[in-house]
């Protein structure tokens, strides 16, 4: 059997099947169970090695031929598959507690299958097509019946679609560069097209506007999932480009460009978050800041940078999922997510409010929380390279911290006579408590993710080597 059947086609088919399952809990149970099993098999099952299962012998082949092209999943991709499907299980299991299982899971599983296919497809550039197909599944995931498509969703579809032709055309130029590595004009053209494509794909300033708009328009848990899946796949795609093409990797301007864009996104994300009165928009700006930190880690172009690049993934996932879950609970039970409407809600929704603040503070890099050890590593590395760069990164984090303090101030501003109560359901309390504990746990013991981290950089053959 081919590895692609297990980790690409099976989740896509399962997603299609789950569209017809109407029970939210069963949908979540099947999807998170399948995702967990896929994560576990990615961790344990060897590819291209015969192994015994009872009396039968099995071998997972790495290659799957499709329409004259190949999907290739090797042992190098297995740690990232573990991370992706582990994260999917994490997102799916909490979704029925807020009534989002049926909207998130079927299309979410198909999107994950497509994004794994984007990691596996050869030639590598065709990933742009698969990412675009995944993008086109987002509107039905985010829009509920009777909801008008907002400007954020239209811009999301537009910007992500604009990226695809640019990246595909770069592929043609890259073939020319491979034939004649000294063709500086061709290299310049390819670099401009590629950079423009990734500016759209990664929502780099000033093409970031869909993120805060979308987070204001749609259900927070669903936007949180979109904000996790697309930047993650785009970042892996971008890092894959840097890894595969020597002319990009060795370009002297690359670290400067990546660090300048990264610092701009961190500073803009953090500083703009301070001035938001809508908590959904704050989440959006935190996502922009996170993408900036990933670009800053890539700008280091060494083994330490690649480690930080992957280290960012797990705390980001937990914080983003917890933040989105808590926001969704508040979104369903308050008139809006503006600071004005959320005044004093801590006394009615203590778990959701507490989880929201914890996740916010973790992404701001507060000590003892999961985001801190990685932020510290980035600040240290940046400071040795350039103090202004480190200062901008710190300013961005301080901006997000100030936004968290504003949120906290609004949530606790209850009249003195109001009483404490906890209106969250027991499953909601459980997931928030687990998320909060995970943030504290990873803050205190960041080495817990080292077994995964040690294997993740193998996906890149050259980067950081």
């Amino acid at each position: 059997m081919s590895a692609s059947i297990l980790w690409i086609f099976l989740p896509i088919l399962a997603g299609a099947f789950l569209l017809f399952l109407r029970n939210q809990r069963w949908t979540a149970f099947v999807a998170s169970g399948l995702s967990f099993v896929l994560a576990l098999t990615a961790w344990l099952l060897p590819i291209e090695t015969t192994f015994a299962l009872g009396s039968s012998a099995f071998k997972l082949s790495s290659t799957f031929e499709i329409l004259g092209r190949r999907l290739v999943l090797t042992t190098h991709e297995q740690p990232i598959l573990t991370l992706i499907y582990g994260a999917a299980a994490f997102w799916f299991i909490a979704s029925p507690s807020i009534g989002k299982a049926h909207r998130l899971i079927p299309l979410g599983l198909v999107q994950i299958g497509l994004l794994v296919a984007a990691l596996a497809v050869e030639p590598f550039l065709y990933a742009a097509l698969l990412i675009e197909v995944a993008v086109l599944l987002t509107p039905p995931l985010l829009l509920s019946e009777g909801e008008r498509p907002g400007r954020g969703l239209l811009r999301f579809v537009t910007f992500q679609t604009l990226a695809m032709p640019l990246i595909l055309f770069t592929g043609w130029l890259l073939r020319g560069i491979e034939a004649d590595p000294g063709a500086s004009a061709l290299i310049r053209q390819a670099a401009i097209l590629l950079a423009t494509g990734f500016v759209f794909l990664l929502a780099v300033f000033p093409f970031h506007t869909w993120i805060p708009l979308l987070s204001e328009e749609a259900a927070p848990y669903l936007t949180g999932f979109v904000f996790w899946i697309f930047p993650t796949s785009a970042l892996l795609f971008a890092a894959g480009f840097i890894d595969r093409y020597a002319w990009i990797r060795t370009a002297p301007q690359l670290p400067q460009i990546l660090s300048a864009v990264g610092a701009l996104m961190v500073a803009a994300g953090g500083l703009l978050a301070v001035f938001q009165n809508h908590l959904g928009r704050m989440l959006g700006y935190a996502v922009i800041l996170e993408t900036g930190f990933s670009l800053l880690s890539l700008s280091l172009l060494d083994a330490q940078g690649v480690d930080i690049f992957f280290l960012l993934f797990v705390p980001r996932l937990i914080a983003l999922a917890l933040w989105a879950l808590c926001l969704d609970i508040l979104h369903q039970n308050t008139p809006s997510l503006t600071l004005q409407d959320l005044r004093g809600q801590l006394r009615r929704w203590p778990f959701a409010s507490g989880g929201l603040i914890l996740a916010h503070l973790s992404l701001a890099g507060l000590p003892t929380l999961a985001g801190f050890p990685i932020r510290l590593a980035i600040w240290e590395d940046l400071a040795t390279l350039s103090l202004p760069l480190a200062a901008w990164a710190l300013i961005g984090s301080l901006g997000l911290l100030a936004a968290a303090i504003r949120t906290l101030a609004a949530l606790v501003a209850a009249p003195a006579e109001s009483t404490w109560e906890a209106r969250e359901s027991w499953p909601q309390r459980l997931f928030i408590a687990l998320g909060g504990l995970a943030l504290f746990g990873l803050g205190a013991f960041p080495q817990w993710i080292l077994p995964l981290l040690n294997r993740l950089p193998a996906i890149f053959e050259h980067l950081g080597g």
Partner: protein
Amino acid sequence: MLLNWIAGILILAAGAWLFISRDWRWNLGAAAIQYLAAFWLVQASWPLAASAVKLITGWMACAAMGITLASAKTESGAEHDWREGGLFRLFAVALASLTAFILAGSASAWLGIPLPITWGSLTMMAVGLLLIGMTTRPLRVILGLLTLLAGFEIIYAAIESSALVTAAQALITLGLALVGAYFLVAAREEPPQ
């Protein structure tokens, strides 16, 4: 060669009409004509059967949106008089087409593709960008994206002939049309009680 120029002119005329007209029926008709012209330009590089995929998926995309709009009772025909801002839009398309023609000369030499094909492709992309840039209405944004991608596919067909890419592009064209139809339906449905 002459037929390629005619296809290019057809793209320009349909693109101008698509940009000027506010009536969805005319818009979809213009898009269908553009797909016909794009098919003709693609078949210069690809076998007829493979290039027919572009035509069929393009027309299916138009049909999917047309059926959605026709069944939406609240959708009016012409929302505005076409003369409203029409001169400005005509001027914008003329300017975009001229820019495309100027760029097409060097692009044609660079890519090794005949001039009318490059011009037709760049004109379509320019009209698509104009549509995307000057509206926030879902139908026109989706038509803009479809036009832009169809224009790109003409040039891309000359440099890439993979079956997987053809299939993925067809899927994306249909997917965009379905997203457009979904937007139109979602915007008109009453929220569930």
